[in-house]
């Protein structure tokens, strides 16, 4: 397969990258791991005239705990997310998503910013990130802005990212005591599979009476973007967490999704699985919240 021709830019700083994007904007695409973009270019779905490689920008490759958040550089790879100790200890649902993504070969190149920016409805990282209440930092030559991932996705392949912006950082609030999240993805195979359904759940328990005071349930692969299961969340608020409650929430989540029939599964199957995965991820979230 041949790639279309393009001009290649390799800035060594974020400032330089922003300047290039400001100049070429709509005719440019950023590239880091390329595990999504290269496929699109080979299939002639995309043919940007300019590619801006972020591979030499070290500031985008860090991870640190800061102000009660885990701050992850956009270029941090999915493989690195699977083994990072901060992610393992504090963001276990994100780790589950990272471990499920693609294959070991893809994970060595794929980046967190890429999995968000490519905005595939079945992507493995956005559900847990949204469940954790994460935000994305977008930089351009005009400055920077922070957008909640909950409001980030507009449609398959479409996000808040403007043509001359770069997603440089993801900020994930660290769950405190009595808070936890879980992620499960369902596919036909254990690797290299497009998810049929994936769900992430987050709950926060009240310190005094142990009731659920906050809940976020995010469903992937059942709509054009990751979707919040609002009626399922409403079922949980103010209640004591137990299996029966989670089952009820799972039932409610089925109404909140809009899956399609495709060769991977029927819409009815996906709806049913949303119910199951909601219950199971709530159980994981509860275990983490109780254990913390």
């Amino acid at each position, binding site marked *: 397969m*041949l790639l279309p021709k393009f*001009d290649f830019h390799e800035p060594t700083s974020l400032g330089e990258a922003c300047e290039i994007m400001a100049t070429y904007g709509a005719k440019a695409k950023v590239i880091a791991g390329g595990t999504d973009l290269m496929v699109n270019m080979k299939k002639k779905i995309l043919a940007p005239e300019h590619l801006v490689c972020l591979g030499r920008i070290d500031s985008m490759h860090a991870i640190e705990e800061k102000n009660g958040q885990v701050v992850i550089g956009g270029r941090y790879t999915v493989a690195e997310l699977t083994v990072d100790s901060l992610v393992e200890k504090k963001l276990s649902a994100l780790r589950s998503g990272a471990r499920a993504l693609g294959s070991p070969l893809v994970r060595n190149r794929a980046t967190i910013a890429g999995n968000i920016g490519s905005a595939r409805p079945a992507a493995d990282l956005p559900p847990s990130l949204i469940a954790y209440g994460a935000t994305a930092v977008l930089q351009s030559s005009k400055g920077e802005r922070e957008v909640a991932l909950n409001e980030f996705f507009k449609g398959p392949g479409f996000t808040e990212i403007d043509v001359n912006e770069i997603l440089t950082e993801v900020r994930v609030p660290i769950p405190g005591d009595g808070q936890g999240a879980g992620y499960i993805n369902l596919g036909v195979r254990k690797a*290299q599979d497009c998810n049929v359904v994936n769900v992430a759940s987050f709950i926060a328990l009240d310190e005094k009476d142990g009731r659920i005071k906050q809940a976020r349930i995010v469903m992937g692969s059942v709509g054009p973007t990751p979707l919040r299961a609002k009626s399922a969340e409403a079922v949980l608020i103010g209640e004591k967490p137990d299996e029966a409650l989670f089952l009820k929430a799972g039932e409610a989540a089925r109404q909140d999704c809009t899956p399609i029939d495709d060769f991977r599964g029927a819409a009815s199957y996906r709806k049913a699985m949303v119910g199951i995965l909601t219950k199971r991820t709530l159980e994981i979230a509860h275990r983490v919240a109780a254990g913390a």
Partner: protein
Amino acid sequence: MKRLITLTVNDREVEIAVEPNMTLTDLIRYELGLTGTKKGCETGDCGACTVIMDGLPVNSCLVLAVQANGRTIETIEGLETGAGLHPVQDAFVEHGAIQCGFCSPGMILSAKHLLDKNPRPDEGEIRAAISGNLCRCTGYQKIIDAIKSV
């Protein structure tokens, strides 16, 4: 317009001018003549194009040659030394883990990378490590047996 890049391939330094839209797979196969690295799906799904770049196995079909500038690449050709085949290659031969051989270079490199990090992997770890390399011939069992035996 071509760009001059320098990279290390199987311990040899290579300096070459490449078009930006050349993939690392094409650089390795057509410019360097190292045809052990194969082109299967060319979209990162089959692993036939696996090489080890800066110590990590990757799909070379998804890496631009210009992105490999300054990096260290190991291909399947780099495993054999004057002393003979690499232990992983030997094990594959001994266990009948090679039929048509098309997946083998990528499979062996993924296996080598696993064993370098984890000399005694269990079956689950082996299967996970090679989950990016597809084989249509063997059904994987003999490949797993070969890797276990090293």
